[in-house]
């Protein structure tokens, strides 16, 4: 049976995920998204993986959410509060979500996952370092290349070209 910390975390996570999509202001929405990401980090702590939880806090809450917040601030004020959606589409979306959740939940509840519990000790996080440097080292190098390529590409895309005087201005 779930304990109190789990219940509180799931309420925070799912509630702020709904709030991130439904709040009127995009700024409050992105702060609610921070709540979701922090709640997921809490789940990682419950799952005895503190290294992944700290990574999640540093990468998601520390950098991605702040990046989104700054992008929202660059957008015009009336666009932040404007909400464009038609009612019919929203009902279809909610129905799609319910059908999806009920069917997938029924499949999972019917499967053998329900009986899985464990008494074994958690994985030591030193094993993750071993994995990274032995079996997964090509993937690690590839990930570094992908990250640097993506950040360089993002900078090139977002760069503004001043056409009037024929020279590039950043």
């Amino acid at each position, binding site marked *: 049976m779930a304990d109190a910390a*789990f219940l509180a975390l799931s309420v925070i996570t799912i509630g702020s995920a709904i709030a991130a999509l439904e709040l009127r202001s995009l700024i409050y929405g992105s702060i609610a998204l921070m709540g979701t990401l922090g709640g997921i980090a809490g789940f990682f702590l419950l799952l005895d993986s503190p290294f992944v939880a700290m990574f999640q806090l540093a990468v998601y809450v520390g950098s991605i959410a702040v990046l989104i917040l700054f992008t929202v601030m660059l957008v015009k004020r009336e666009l932040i509060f404007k909400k464009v959606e038609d009612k019919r589409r929203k009902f279809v979306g909610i129905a799609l979500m319910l059908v999806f959740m009920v069917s997938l939940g029924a499949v999972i509840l019917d499967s053998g996952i329900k009986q*899985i519990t464990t008494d074994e000790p958690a994985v030591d*996080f030193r094993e993750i370092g071993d994995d990274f440097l032995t079996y997964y080292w090509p993937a690690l190098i590839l990930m570094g290349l992908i990250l640097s390529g*993506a950040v360089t590409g993002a900078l090139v*895309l977002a760069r*503004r070209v001043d056409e009037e005087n024929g020279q590039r201005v950043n």
Partner: protein
Amino acid sequence: MRKMANELIEFVLVSVALLGIGIYGLSVKRNAIRMLFSIEIVINAANLNMVAFGRFLPHSGGQTLALFSIAIAAAEVAVGLSLIIVAYRMYHNIDIADFRSLKG
């Protein structure tokens, strides 16, 4: 080391709920930044699943894959946000129904 108080099925159900919310946002919202929020929620549901299954096996592969996934998601958000900024500069709007030039 303490005994696990929670079962695997609970984490998987939370993950299913997050996935459903993300799919709802992707299909209903027309604001580009909100669609990016939904993608983040879906990716986080997948990460939660990976770490949960890795804890209950127990095997270190789940956490390793989750770390890779978080790093790739960071790159994806950087590129996505810069695309949104470029589109905003071209159309002065972040409504995806206004981004018409790809319709042919």
